[in-house]
């Protein structure tokens, strides 16, 4: 149950709320994943991308905001309690576990990746990356930095581990400060800084002089925005639709349980529709306008179209961000400043997302298990630190990739399907629509009622079916996994199973020890008004 001073528990301002929600969505993927998804299909990719945004992404964000605020009215800050309030079935609370498990599991590798950006910002600032002149040299340098280049039993690098510790402590510090004094303050200042830095970098890249006939900014932009009949023919293939929808899920950070927890601190009179849309559209600005204008155009100007596409195909856009861009910045005037800015931007993008990832777990401990906040923060810090060690030390055995597939990809899609079905079909879209419009400042077009009722859940369930068809069995049976990686893949799965078991026990224990809290139909708001009436009655 929520205790402590109210100012530490809720949002301090509407701008802070929107920045925190947008920051939750804006992450490393906006700058590194999105361009990589768009390049193979060119301008054609934007068609399914924006359709997915309108038909799946924005409705899903509104659904999560609605579930979260409704749960918060019953003093539930996480999805087990929220789902139980939507669907009074014994299974519903256990389905809600995904909303705590997924962000916590993603958090344990996301913070490590985020720390690379901080480490590289430091290396750019101190000139440690100077003297490397080729892409291959940068690739080897990155391997040394993360400790995978000369890894034996473990992959360890004291420099990268130091930056991991700094990043980890920053995240725990922000988490411990609470919503208004921690997450909101960081988001309120970091998001505008991130956007300004992104704009400066985009202008710098878009004004780079040509280095050859096909090494121009125009050729770089064409990789994402070209309009050719061949690309539009790819729209007939399901892969492009899956890629675009997946990107919308990842970029909006829906299906992870974090939006629910943030929204649970709102009251019934607080708007959901305009706030939700503003957070989504801020994320789109960062992704499409800024994210699409930095990595790929810069790579094409310096490497040419063929080589840039080859890097995207073989190593991915992550490689361009960490291997190629430092090289590029070395070769332009004041490049070190832009280099530091680039990696610090990635770090801020990561921080505004990662600080939300352990919030559901902490709130679950506080709300449902009624653990004191300080003890909860210590527990989360201890849990996260221990779970992060295999990811760091066995990174060369694909522990991170395994966690990312099950939690950050398949788990996310599965949870989206569950929550849309629970909200739209079981709870009912009529009640959901009513909930969404309480205190609304933006009237949502009626067509979204039908989109939420039919298109969003059908598409979400269809995506789960597609994932099951497209390689799930191979993933389960570890087909194509080298024998030396198998024990480590199992280790990743044990981490997931142990955490899931703890959460299942936690939900069971919470419902056993204080069942009245979960059955009570009196909401927080009506409770307040009832108490006020009681006070008025006693005075009269």
């Amino acid at each position, binding site marked *: 149950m929520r205790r402590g001073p109210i100012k530490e528990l809720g949002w301090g*301002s509407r701008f802070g709320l929107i920045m925190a929600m947008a920051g939750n969505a804006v992450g490393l993927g906006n700058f590194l994943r999105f361009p990589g998804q768009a390049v193979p299909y060119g*301008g054609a990719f934007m068609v399914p991308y924006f359709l997915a945004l309108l038909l799946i992404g924005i409705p899903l964000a509104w659904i999560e905001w609605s579930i979260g605020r409704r749960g918060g009215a019953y003093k539930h800050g996480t999805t087990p309690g929220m789902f139980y309030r939507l669907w009074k079935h014994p299974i519903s609370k256990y389905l809600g576990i995904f909303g705590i498990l997924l962000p916590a599991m993603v958090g344990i590798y996301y913070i490590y990746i985020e720390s690379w950006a901080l480490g590289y910002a430091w290396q750019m600032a101190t000139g440690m990356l100077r003297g490397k002149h080729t892409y291959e040299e940068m690739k080897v340098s990155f391997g040394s930095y993360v400790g995978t280049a000369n890894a034996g039993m473990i992959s360890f690098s004291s420099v990268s581990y130091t930056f991991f510790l700094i990043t980890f402590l920053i995240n725990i510090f922000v988490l411990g400060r609470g919503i208004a004094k921690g997450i909101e303050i960081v988001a309120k200042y970091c998001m505008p800084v991130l956007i300004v830095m992104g704009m400066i970098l985009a202008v710098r890249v878009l004004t780079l002089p040509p280095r050859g006939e096909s090494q121009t900014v125009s*050729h770089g932009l064409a990789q994402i925005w070209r309009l050719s009949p061949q690309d539009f023919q790819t729209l007939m293939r399901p892969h492009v639709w899956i890629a675009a929808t997946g990107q919308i899920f990842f970029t909006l950070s829906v299906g992870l349980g974090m939006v629910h927890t943030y929204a649970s601190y709102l009251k019934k009179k607080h708007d959901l529709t305009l706030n939700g849309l*503003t957070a989504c559209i801020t994320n*789109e600005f960062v992704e499409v*306008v800024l994210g699409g204008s930095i990595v790929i155009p810069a790579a094409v100007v310096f490497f040419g179209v063929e080589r840039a596409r080859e890097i995207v195909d073989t190593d991915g856009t992550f490689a361009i961000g960490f291997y190629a861009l430092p090289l590029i910045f070395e070769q332009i005037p004041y490049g070190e400043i832009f280099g530091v800015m680039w990696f610090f931007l990635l770090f801020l993008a990561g921080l505004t997302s990662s600080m939300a990832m352990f919030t559901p777990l902490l709130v679950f401990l506080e709300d449902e298990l009624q653990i004191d906040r300080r003890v909860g923060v210590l527990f989360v810090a201890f849990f996260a630190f221990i779970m992060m060690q295999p990811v760091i030390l066995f990174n060369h055995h694909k522990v991170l990739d395994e966690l990312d597939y099950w939690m950050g990809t398949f788990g996310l899609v599965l949870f989206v399907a569950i929550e849309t079905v629970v909200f739209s079909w079981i709870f009912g879209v009529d009640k959901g629509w009513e909930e969404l419009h309480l205190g609304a400042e933006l009237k949502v077009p009626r067509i979204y009622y039908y989109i939420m009722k039919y298109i969003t859940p059908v598409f979400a369930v269809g995506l789960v079916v597609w994932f099951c068809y497209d390689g799930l069995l191979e993933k389960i049976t570890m087909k194509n996994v080298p024998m030396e990686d198998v024990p480590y893949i199992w280790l990743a799965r044990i981490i997931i199973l142990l955490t899931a078991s703890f959460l299942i026990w936690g939900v069971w224990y919470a419902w056993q020890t204080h069942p009245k809290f979960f059955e009570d139909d009196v909401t927080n708001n009506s409770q307040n008004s009832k108490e006020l009436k009681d*006070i008025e009655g006693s005075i009269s």
Partner: protein
Amino acid sequence: MMTWYSYLYMFSVWAIIIGLNIYCFYRVLTSKNIITHDDDEEEENSK
């Protein structure tokens, strides 16, 4: 190489996104319905 209609496509998408951002933030920042804890504190004090 970007053709004129590719530029038109790109700038149209950018214009829609930036326009929506301006519209949403204008509505949010000029709204009287702000999130504040004053009402919560009043409720707390009245108990």
